[in-house]
């Protein structure tokens, strides 16, 4: 029953597509024990209404509506400001005196390594499986709209960050919710939203940012390395040790290696997609037309055009996290005199994540003809099949990419969770250690158990972050507008000009 609800109704990222690491016994007992508690929360967050025969989770609507509101309110900032964003990332406005500080490029790269992940590989497979090629059109549209949400939340993240005496910084939704709203005399509401956000952020970090990643990368690995089959605990233990070495041991070298390999993997992935597109260049017009006709008049898709739209919107929201508030934590450390610049930089994130990488995946699936209506190949298996059609053995590359993406996502989320944790319990080495230890334990749990309900719950927590975050964004958006106007004035007057 639960499975069918999750599969058809909630359509969590991979729920319907990938089997969880299976084992019986204790985890089954825990699942049954936890299910009655978490199910109501899960079904509240992912409360869905039937739209033309397809279940539409309201939370996805909440994210998309917010993205539309911010797009209109800031006058299509994602298009007008796109060129300026590129210039900022390129370092055209970076003061050489600040050499050694966090550059816009670094903040963008770090935030991206938290969002580029399984969603880009497997999530798109699910979208095309359920929504047909037309889902791609809506996914791109949602990605483009989401750029405005990122602009808003990352500007606020920098504007309201805490800068401590020792030179470290903390920023993110919990800070702009509490500080920003208290400026408007709504301190109690701000505090409530900030704590609500923090609780969800901790849950999301342990779940979607940890257990889910461990579980799904194990599912991938055990499918290509038979040795690991049924040994989820061993895989989990290895991952937990690696994560622990980085976040507790402070051994930066492993993180550094990953942070270098992950962009490399992303480039290999996009490169392979481009090669396949070029190899089948004659098929491209047909694929593009399939995407457009599929968007408005799809055949063989449940719910027709609306079905395709829902799938595309869902995957985009799940993949780029625009409106969730997480990226704002990573962006807060940048050096800038004008918080708006970080908003400009951050708006590139959904563009790269969704408009570029997700579109590549779905083009490959469409071009190679891997999507056959009625066929039950979906998720990462569908993506893998499409790539394998032209590049034999790419399934292995995908599996390695999946593990690395999962690892870097865990590192990022361990930090997001930690910041929420210290916001609630206060800073301090001992308090931080408690959270980090819990985080590592959850890696093992995530990989070794088939705790469907727990993972659903934590996925729900990630999206619940958007409830508090977006309420805050609506209330604080006039401040962003004022900051933007001030910045644009200085740009126009030449007070801020290119260094290079």
């Amino acid at each position, binding site marked *: 029953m639960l499975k069918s609800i999750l599969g058809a109704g909630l359509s969590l990222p991979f729920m319907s597509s990938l089997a969880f690491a299976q084992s019986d016994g204790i985890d089954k007992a825990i699942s049954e024990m936890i299910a009655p508690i978490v199910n109501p929360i899960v079904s509240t967050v992912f409360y869905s209404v039937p739209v033309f025969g397809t279940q539409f989770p309201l939370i996805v609507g909440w994210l998309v509506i917010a993205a539309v509101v911010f797009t209109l309110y800031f006058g299509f900032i994602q298009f007008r400001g796109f060129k300026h964003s590129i210039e900022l990332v390129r370092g055209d406005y970076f003061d050489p005196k600040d*050499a050694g500080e966090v550059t816009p490029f*670094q903040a963008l790269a770090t935030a991206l390594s938290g969002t580029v992940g399984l969603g880009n590989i497997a999530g798109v497979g699910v979208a095309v499986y359920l929504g047909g090629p037309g889902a791609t059109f809506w996914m791109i549209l949602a990605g483009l709209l989401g750029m405005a949400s990122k602009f808003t939340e990352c500007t606020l993240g920098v504007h309201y960050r805490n800068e401590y005496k020792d030179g470290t*910084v903390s920023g993110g939704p919990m800070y702009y919710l509490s500080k920003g709203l208290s400026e408007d005399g709504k301190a109690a509401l701000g505090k409530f939203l900030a704590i609500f956000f923090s609780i969800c952020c901790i849950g999301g970090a342990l779940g979607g940012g940890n257990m889910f990643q461990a579980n799904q990368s194990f599912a991938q690995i055990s499918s290509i390395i038979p040795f690991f089959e049924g040994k989820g605990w061993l895989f989990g233990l290895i991952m937990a040790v690696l994560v622990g070495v980085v976040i507790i041991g402070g051994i930066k070298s492993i*993180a550094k290696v990953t*942070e270098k390999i992950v962009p490399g993997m992303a480039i290999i992935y996009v490169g392979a997609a481009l090669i396949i597109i070029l190899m089948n260049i004659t098929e491209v017009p047909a694929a593009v037309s399939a995407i457009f006709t599929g968007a408005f008049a799809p055949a063989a898709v449940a719910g027709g055009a609306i079905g395709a739209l829902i799938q595309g919107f869902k995957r985009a929201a799940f993949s780029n996290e625009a409106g969730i508030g997480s990226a704002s*934590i990573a962006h807060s*450390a940048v050096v800038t005199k004008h918080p708006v610049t970080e908003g400009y930089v951050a708006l590139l994130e959904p563009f790269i994540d969704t408009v570029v990488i997700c579109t590549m995946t779905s083009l490959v699936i469409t071009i190679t003809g891997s999507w056959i209506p009625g066929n039950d190949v979906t998720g990462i298996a569908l993506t893998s099949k499409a790539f394998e059609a032209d590049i034999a053995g790419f399934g292995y590359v995908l599996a390695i990419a999946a593990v690395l993406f999962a690892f870097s996502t865990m*590192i990022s989320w361990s*930090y997001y969770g930690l910041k929420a944790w210290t916001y609630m319990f206060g800073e301090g080495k001992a308090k931080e250690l408690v959270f980090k230890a819990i985080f590592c334990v959850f890696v093992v749990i995530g990989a070794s158990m088939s705790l469907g309900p727990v993972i659903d719950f934590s996925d729900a927590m990630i999206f619940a972050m958007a409830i508090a975050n977006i309420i805050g964004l609506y209330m604080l958006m006039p401040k962003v507008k004022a900051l933007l106007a001030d910045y644009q004035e200085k740009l126009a007057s030449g007070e801020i000009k290119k260094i290079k």
Partner: protein
Amino acid sequence: MTDIFIVGFDGSESARHAADFAAERAKLAKAKLHLVQVLEWSPYSFHTPEELAERHMRREQELDRANAIVQPVTDELNAAGVETTCEARHGNAAELLCEIAEAKGAVQIIIGRSGGTGLANRLLGSLVISLAQAAPVPVTIVP
């Protein structure tokens, strides 16, 4: 106007040789010395979120440490009668030395032969070679 010699300094023995060598020439030429300590740094490197949050603090610490190395040598050379200034900065060593040489209107750059370990330097392309190719002024390499 007094000539300025730029000295690439990293606290190593060979950098010290270069500084002493430069001081001798400066004395003869009545020139000034400017010691530059470069902290290797790239605007395009990747960091974890935690490293980003600590970056500003680390940067200050790195600068303090660098200054603690270069300042005593500067004082020593000044005491020996050679007018010497110094600075520590983040960036690419070759680029920064060229940039500073140009900005200060220096007449030459003096560096030690090798600051770090041989293999790493050879693999990564050493400062000596980059400077030989790109420097706007004559470069003296002190063994």
